[in-house]
């Protein structure tokens, strides 16, 4: 058994720095590269892509990343785990195999974790009384059944472990927890059991720290952003994991960024609820047990983590169509920048009302004044310039399209010294809303397929 492994974060979301995974495999030693591609509503975008073309529906970025790093992966024996499969993990695998063929690389073993996509199984669940009640509102999924775009179960680390145990060098999953990507190699390498709660919790916490990429290594660091060296070449975080569950968060020395107890603590608190119960499919981790200690330059030791048995449920992430959104901006300069922006927002609202348009919501914001902090923003006597941002939400397509035609006219028919209307008439875009639910683990079975 290895005494430690280095797991490197390569992507914090679909669209993150394309350079990061390349840097992780070329600027120092790592054993695993883990990449998170799936935000809450990403699956719906992928379902739409798959509807248009059955060969799509996964993160195509992943394939181009693999093309850049595959020779290094092979020569250095680095394994990759990514939830890049979206709603079409086999198509993603085939695309990666195609890349390998193009590069003349043979013998690549790829694991696919699937079985998370339950969209087509919903009628079966509803018939048996599994209503996938919304965790926020308690409503049955019946309510949005005909507008559903995607429905996926969050798998944990164990299906990935199975693929690694079968010798996969690249593991592609559909919906899987971000933390499971990091926990899986620890279970695989250190032989942790499925009831080693403290160890599983430790791996989960490591995953939580890595899952947003550079947010643990100096990115978005509110503590002291000016102290972060070389943002341009920011290094993504690396977890050096040990069999006893302790781990060090660090980064490659030759890259920019910053890892200290402050950057790690900020990420620990990111998007958590009750810290005593951070619930995942494999374990319930207690964030109030985490100890964080300075262990040298750009090295932070994390230890002491406690966990409790997992729950009998998987979390489900479903998405559904919920009307349209449209937004546009105009910039008003001195004099009376704030007053003019506000007046323009009111004039627009009145015109939309006179046209009889219907919206579920109309919102005017004043960027430069208070769009972020509302009444908490400091008042300024005379603003040099203010950007008006108007947004609408609704289900009536005619009103939504009509809104887009009323912005530009404000320039010649409203308050003066106005500019910044770019990009033409805003077109309504589809709103995809999120439906969180739970499902009994007994009705779901993760599937693993390793080929090559």
């Amino acid at each position, binding site marked *: 058994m290895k005494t430690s492994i280095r797991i490197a974060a390569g992507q914090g979301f679909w669209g993150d720095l394309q350079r990061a995974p390349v840097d992780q495999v070329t600027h120092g030693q790592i054993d695993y590269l883990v990449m998170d591609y799936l935000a*809450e*509503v990403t699956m719906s975008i992928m379902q739409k892509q798959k509807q248009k073309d059955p060969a799509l529906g996964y993160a195509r970025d992943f394939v181009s990343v693999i093309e850049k790093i595959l020779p290094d992966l092979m020569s250095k024996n680095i394994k990759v785990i990514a939830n890049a499969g979206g709603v079409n993990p086999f198509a993603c695998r085939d695309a990666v195999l195609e890349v390998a063929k193009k590069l003349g690389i043979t013998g690549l073993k790829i694991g696919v974790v699937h079985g998370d996509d339950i969209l087509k199984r919903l009628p079966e669940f509803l018939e048996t009384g599994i209503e996938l009640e919304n965790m*926020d509102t308690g409503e049955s999924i019946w309510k949005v059944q005909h507008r559903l775009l995607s429905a996926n179960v969050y798998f944990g680390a164990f299906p990935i472990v199975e693929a690694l145990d079968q010798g996969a060098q690249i593991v592609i999953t559909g919906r899987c927890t971000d933390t499971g990507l990091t926990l899986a190699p620890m279970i695989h390498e250190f032989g942790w059991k499925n009831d080693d709660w403290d160890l599983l919790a430790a791996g989960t916490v490591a995953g939580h720290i890595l899952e947003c990429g550079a*947010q643990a290594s100096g990115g*978005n660091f*509110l*503590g*002291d952003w000016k102290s972060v060296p070389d943002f341009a070449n920011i290094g993504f975080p690396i977890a050096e994991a040990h069999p006893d569950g302790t781990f060090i968060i660090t980064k490659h020395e030759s890259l920019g960024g910053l890892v200290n107890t*402050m950057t790690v*603590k*900020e*990420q*620990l*608190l*990111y*998007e*958590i*609820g*009750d*810290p*005593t119960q951070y619930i995942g499919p494999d374990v319930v981790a207690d*964030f*109030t*047990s*985490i*100890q*964080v200690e300075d262990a040298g330059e750009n090295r932070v030791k994390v230890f*002491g983590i406690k966990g409790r048995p997992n729950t009998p449920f998987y979390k489900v992430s479903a998405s559904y169509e*919920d009307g349209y*959104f449209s*937004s546009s901006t105009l910039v008003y300069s001195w004099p009376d920048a704030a007053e003019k922006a506000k007046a323009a927002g009111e004039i627009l609202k009145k015109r939309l009302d006179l046209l009889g348009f219907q919206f579920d*919501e*109309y*919102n005017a*914001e004043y*960027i430069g004044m208070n*769009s*972020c*902090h*509302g*009444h*908490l923003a400091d008042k300024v006597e005379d603003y040099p310039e203010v950007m008006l*941002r108007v*947004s*609408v*939400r609704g289900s009536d397509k005619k009103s939504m399209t009509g809104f887009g035609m009323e912005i530009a006219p404000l320039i010649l028919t409203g308050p003066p010294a106005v500019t910044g209307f770019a990009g033409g008439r805003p077109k309504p875009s589809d*709103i*995809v*809303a*999120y439906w*969180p639910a739970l499902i009994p683990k007994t009705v779901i079975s993760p599937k693993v397929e390793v080929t090559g």
Partner: protein
Amino acid sequence: MKTIRLFDIAHGRSGDKGDTSNIGIIARKPEFYPILVETLTPETVKSWFGPICKGKVERFELPNIQALNFLLHEALGGGGTVTLKLDAQGKTMAAALLKMEIQVPDELEV
């Protein structure tokens, strides 16, 4: 007593879960943690955000990392992809809380 901003003794990060804003606030030094616990109650945080937070405020303590975690319910205009707010995910909410001015003893070194 002297007036300082919370930002002088704390830092943090914020994000979203649906229509709930999650704000993590961390003491810059362990000795500042009791000040955070005393100053940032669910009531004072709810009152600070006023009309921005329409629901309740929950507070969780993490003495192990000298931090507090807040959940501000109904604070993101419907949340997620539905909200019309520019700061749809409440990414700037931690900064908004750290603007708060508080009274501390003159001898406190910040």
